[in-house]
Each structure stands twice: as structure tokens, then as C-alpha cells.
């Protein structure tokens, strides 16, 4: 989700003819001071981080003169706000604001179409506006083929109480935001908040937020978001290879490489609730099942890693292909930390055969590799664990134990566990599996 920093978004806005305040981006207090001198008016200094609500976090300061501007920049650059280190500040002319509005275009999941949002109030988050001033807020659901027309924006502007003399200029701004920004740049979200009416009657985009669809970046190769320059080696590598890699806490002890995302997110829940920490969330699913080995090499560069969990329940992907790729990578890399591999789903039988064979190899090599699969009883090899009902939870439990953390279930209060339902599930499995014609289930039944 390339989220552009404010100054980057404003560069695009200006290019597309949307008016923004005069300003420049500074990396040092000295630069900030000299920019303020050049602007020659009171300025505002704003931290450039990929997050909203910067003002409330103390990341926006006003300066009457260049010295103050330098001082303000010194207080901001290098500090951390909302979890992001500040590398740059935007130095802009301070606007003489008469009135603030809000305009934005979002992706309306329910309507499956773009939605244009307009309010005659601005400067606070849109959620707050809609709650506090519902009568001053309008939403236009736009037909993606027809696109937004100016009259729709005009009507909405009137409805929310924007003064008559401003209706045309606000509507034009909304129109440009939709066509020249949202549509042209494949935005997932764009917003001008506040859109300022200055005392000399100009409409200026005092802030600019723009987030571009990752999957559409191939149409916008000219844009290289600054946030991507700060990616670490692992994030860069994953981006190059094209797989999902979310670094949650680089200093944490467990890496989870899953297939697919739903399983990975469930693992994240159980680990977090047990008091463990996931260093990263990685989905090798879908397009990338052949890259499992590469993924392993990458996560092993995490500094405090104590275990790696491959948790695979394959559909579109193939468990046997992933098992083969992971085992080859393990033999090549010879990781010093324990690895747990769970492989089920499409290609399961092949995957189990591979794991049986390779676990002997791993043992000879002195590596700690444990494994399981849905139809594994735990007797297949000394390093195998029973699957069945436990095939999702056991890998999580074992990986935590291998890190020295005792596994316990600890779901949120609003979602208590139901041990009686779990008990019933197990009873049913014990009863029904022996009836099955498939030998693997008959065998598994003895262990459920």
C-alpha cells in the first residue's frame, strides 16, 4: 500500500493543477530555516510520516520567523511520532484560514464503487465529522464507468451548506480530485483535509493524503514512494520477489511463513494471546508457492529469531511442492534454530512422504526440524506430531515451547473459548473416523 507522504502527494496534486500552499521539504533545521526565509511569511512545520493525526501527536508546529522555524524543525527531525521516525519536515506558508472543508474519495466496499465524500467542516478526521455534523456531510456513490460529474459535486456541496459563491470552485476541486488523482493514479484513498478557504478567497489543499493501490503500481512506475526507501533488506527482498512480507517486530522470536493468509493471521492471534511475539507475517501462498525456500533464507536474517514455523494448508498451492522447497532450503542453509513444518491440503500425501524421508536426513545432520500434517498420527518419525483436530494448534504450541514460552489459550473477553464444543468435535472424530474407507483416517482415529 504505497502511502505517499504529504509532500509527495502535494507534488502530484500541484502537477495535476490542485492548489497547495507554497512550501518545501527540509531534512535539517538549517534547511527549514532557510526555506522559511525564502517564504518570507509565518510558516507551519509538519512532520512527514506515513500516518494521519500528526497534529494531535504534536508533529505540527507554527513559526513566526525563520529562527523559530529552525528551532521547531530541530524539535521534530529525528524524533519518533506514532511509531515512525521523522526524516523530513514540510515547511509551508501559514495560511490565513477563513473556513475549513473536507473532500475525499474512498473505496466503498459495500457499494463496490468509489465514494466521494464532502463536508462543510474540515480539519478533523472524517469519522468525527460524520458523527458530530451529519447534516454537514454528503456521500456520492459514483458509477465507475460514468465517473463523477461536476453537477453531482455541486449538488453535494450545496447540500452540506457550502456557501453559494464557493460551490463552483469546491465542485471543481472535487472533480479534479476524483479524475486527476483518484482515477488517474489508481488511488485506494485520497483526501484533502482541510481544504482551506483563505481570507483572500482562495481554495487551497492545506493537507493532502494519497495512497496508491499496490497492485496498480505497474501503471505508475514514475512514482517511487519515499516510504519504500526506508524498507529494510528483508522488506526490499520480499518486494523484489513479490511475496507478502509484513515485519511486525524485527526483534521478536518467531517467524511465521504461512499459506495462506487466513492461517497466518490465526497463528498470529494464538501466538500473541499466548504472550509470544511474531517477528513477521509472511504469506507464500497463491502465486509464490515455489519460493518457500527463499523465504526461509530471508527470515533467518532476523536478529533474535528462535524458531521458524511453516504453516501450510494448501488449496491453490501444493503442499508437496512447498515441502520439497522448504526441505531443500533447510539442507542448504542448515539453520541453527528449530523449524516446524506443517503441510496439509492439496498434495498432502506427497508432502507427508517427503517429510518422512527428509526428517531422517535432518536428524543425521543434527538439525531440529519437527513436522506434522492433517493425516499424520505422530508415529511416522521421531520428529512428527499428531495432526487431525490439532493440526492448526500443535505447531503454534510447539514453536512457542521451542522458544521457551509456555503455550496457553487466552482469547479476548468478548470471545470466550468453548471447551465443550471442542470436546464434541474430538468425540465426533473418534466416532466417525474408524468408519471411513480411507486407511489414513482409520489410523488417525486411534490417536484423536
Amino acid at each position, binding site marked *: *500500500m504505497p502511502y505517499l507522504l504529504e509532500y509527495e502527494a502535494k507534488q502530484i496534486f500541484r502537477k495535476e493543477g490542485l492548489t497547495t500552499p507554497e512550501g518545501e521539504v527540509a531534512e535539517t533545521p538549517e534547511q527549514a530555516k532557510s526555506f522559511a526565509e525564502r517564504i518570507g511569511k509565518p510558516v507551519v512545520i509538519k512532520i512527514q510520516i506515513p500516518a494521519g493525526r500528526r497534529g494531535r501527536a504534536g508533529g505540527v508546529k507554527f513559526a513566526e520567523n525563520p529562527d523559530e522555524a529552525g528551532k521547531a524543525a530541530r524539535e521534530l527531525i529525528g524524533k519518533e511520532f506514532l511509531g515512525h521516525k521523522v526524516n523530513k519536515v514540510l515547511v509551508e506558508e501559514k495560511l490565513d484560514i477563513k473556513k475549513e472543508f473536507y473532500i475525499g474519495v474512498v*473505496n466503498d*466496499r*459495500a457499494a*463496490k464503487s*468509489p465514494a466521494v465524500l464532502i463536508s462543510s467542516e474540515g480539519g478533523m478526521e472524517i*469519522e468525527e465529522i460524520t458523527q458530530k455534523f451529519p447534516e454537514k456531510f454528503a456521500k456520492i456513490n459514483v458509477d*465507475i*464507468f460514468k465517473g463523477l460529474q461536476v453537477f453531482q459535486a455541486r449538488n453535494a456541496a450545496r447540500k452540506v451548506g457550502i456557501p453559494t459563491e464557493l460551490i463552483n470552485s469546491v465542485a471543481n476541486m472535487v472533480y479534479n480530485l476524483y479524475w486527476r488523482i483518484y482515477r488517474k493514479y*489508481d488511488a485506494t484513498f485520497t483526501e484533502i483535509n482541510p481544504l482551506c478557504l483563505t481570507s483572500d478567497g482562495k481554495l487551497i489543499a492545506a493537507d493532502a493524503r494519497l495512497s496508491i*493501490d499496490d*497492485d*496498480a503500481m*505497474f501503471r505508475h512506475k514514475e512514482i517511487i514512494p519515499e516510504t519504500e526507501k526506508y524498507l529494510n533488506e528483508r522488506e526490499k527482498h520480499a518486494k523484489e520477489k513479490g511475496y507478502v512480507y*509484513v515485519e*511486525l517486530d524485527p526483534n521478536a522470536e518467531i517467524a511465521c511463513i504461512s*499459506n495462506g*493468509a*487466513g*492461517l497466518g*493471521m*490465526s497463528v498470529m492471534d494464538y501466538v*500473541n*494471546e499466548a504472550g509470544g511475539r511474531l517477528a513477521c*507475517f509472511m504469506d507464500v*501462498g*497463491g*502465486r509464490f508457492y515455489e519460493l518457500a525456500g527463499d523465504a526461509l533464507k530471508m527470515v533467518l536474517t532476523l536478529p533474535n529469531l528462535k524458531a521458524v514455523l511453516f504453516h501450510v*494448508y*494448501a*488449496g*491453490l498451492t*501444493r503442499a508437496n*511442492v512447498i515441502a520439497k522447497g522448504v526441505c531443500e532450503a533447510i539442507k542448504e542453509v542448515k539453520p541453527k534454530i528449530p523449524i516446524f513444518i506443517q503441510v*496439509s*491440503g*492439496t*498434495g498432502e*500425501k506427497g508432502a507427508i512422504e517427503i517429510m518422512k524421508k527428509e526428517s531422517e536426513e535432518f536428524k543425521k545432520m543434527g538439525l531440529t526440524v519437527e513436522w506434522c500434517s492433517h493425516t499424520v498420527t505422530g508415529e511416522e518419525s521421531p520428529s512428527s506430531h499428531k495432526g487431525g*483436530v490439532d493440526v*492448526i494448534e500443535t505447531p503454534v504450541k510447539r514453536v512457542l515451547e521451542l522458544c521457551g514460552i509456555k503455550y496457553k489459550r487466552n*482469547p*479476548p473477553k*468478548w*470471545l470466550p*473459548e*468453548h471447551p*465443550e*464444543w*471442542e470436546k*464434541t*468435535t474430538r468425540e*465426533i*472424530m473418534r466416532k*466417525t473416523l474408524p*468408519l*471411513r*474407507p*480411507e486407511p489414513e*483416517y482409520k489410523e488417525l482415529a486411534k490417536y484423536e
Partner: protein
Amino acid sequence: MTVFATEKTVALVQGITGKEGAFRTKRMLEYGTKIVAGVTPGKGGQEVYGVPVYDSVEEAVKAHPEINTAVQFVPARLAKDASFEVIEAGIKNLLIIAEGIPFQDTMEIVTMGKEKGVTIVGPNTSGVISPPICELGACCQSAFHGPGKIGVISTTGSVQWYVSRLISLGGWGVSTMMQIGGDPIRGTDFPEALLMYEKDPQTEAMVIIGEIGGDSEIRAADLIERGEVKKPVIAYIYARTAPPGKRLGHAGAIIERGGGVEAKVKALQKAGAIVITYPWEILGAIKELGIKTIPELFKTPIKESKIEE
């Protein structure tokens, strides 16, 4: 009867000559899915596992007017064109597998589909399966047994294969599993899917597996609350410890301006749905609904294509 993938399904495979398209065509055929044509522009006249390949959907439909469903194995960047081609050719069911379609493209696809009365499932899905009669896409066939009574609707494959497998082995069987996908814009979302299952006489209860992001699960809860969905619904919603602002694997899985699990769980509970905390609670929850198991299912072998490659 079942949903989307039925005994009446006659399918065309887009991208049939590609590696994945061909492999999955073979698996679908072995499962019993009726596939009468494939399309790869520039490769007309070839055959893939006995299925004739055409240069265009139009040609394929002309030669096989019985086609009513398209399964699309086409790269994300080409999906819009390929989808429009299907819709223009008059095919009324479209399954889009690709992950990574720009979502404004998806908006155009679903808008056009809606105008022309086409049911679209996906994008970013493994597919739809109605055991043992029809598999569309790239499902984990061995996780399913049927004809069954439980409808499964899911954003994800992984955890869902596990849940579906337990339901199948437990003797209730699955009527249809529909993976609606992990994108923010979906051809069929939870509310529409629930209504499809509500009308299906074979389905007695629905299991929905959802995630963070958006409000589809909440809109589903509204349908239940309004009485438009009367059959029992069991839900599992994952990513309850997700950090805000991080996109976790699925393009749609992000907490921004709402979309957290707690609100979804509470809305579903309030509407009368059963929410399970762990996927392994599923059979206990189903049993509590008083739905009877199907004794024949315990004895009949589970169907699966033999090829694993």
C-alpha cells in the same frame, strides 16, 4: 441443488494452456466437472486433456452454447479484459482466481457484471466446490465430502480447508464451499453469498470465515437480524490481534477506519449467529444446531483427483 457450482454447470476455462490452467483443468475434469472448452488467445485449435482450445470466448460459446460458467486462470493484469470478454459473450457465472488485480479494475468488472446479470466470485480466490459433483478453480478437493448440508463461505483457503474437512469427516458434509476471496472489492461478498445459500434447499446452515477489514461481516449480521437469512450461521473471524494499519496478506485485510474483529463478532452475536473462537470448535457448534449427520457419508470414499504433479 447447490450454489454456483452445480450439476448443471458447464464450464469454459480461460487461460487453459498455461501451467496452472492446464494442471487445474486436469484436476477439475478428474473430479467430474464438466469442462467443454478452453480459451487462450493465439492458441486456438490445440487441445488440453481432450478439451478443445479456442482463440476467443465468443468462438467457444458459439461452438458450445451450453457453456454457462467461466473459470479464469489469467494473470491479474489481464483479468479485466478477460472478464469483460466473458461478460460480453453472455456467460452468466464467472470465477476469477487471480490475486493482485488493481481494485479499480475489479470495480469495473463487478459493475459490468451486475449490469449484465452475471454472478462473479472472486477475485483472489481458490474457487468453489460442491462435493462430489463439481469443482471450479483450485480447491483442496480432499477436504470435502458430500453431497452435504453445510454451506461454507470464506475469505481464505487455509483455515477454511481445515474447517471444511472437519465438517466433511464429521458426517454433515459440505453443500458448497465458496471462497469469496481476500480482496477489498469482491464479486460476491458475504451478504450476497448468504442469500444464495438461504435459497438453496440442500444447505441447512452456513459457516462463514471472515477477517479484518471492511464491514462485510457486519452487513451479513444485518441480514440475519432483519430475518432475510433465517438458516443458522456459525462464524469464525480471524486476525483479532492484528495491529492497525498493517495489511496482512490479503489486500482487504487491514484495520483502517474500522474493520476490527471485535465489532464484527459483536454484530454477529447480536444478530443471533454463533461465533466460534477456535476453528476446532466447529463440530460442537454444528451439533448444537440439531442438524442430523448423513450416515452414507461415513462409508463412501472421499473424491479426489489423483494427480499431484
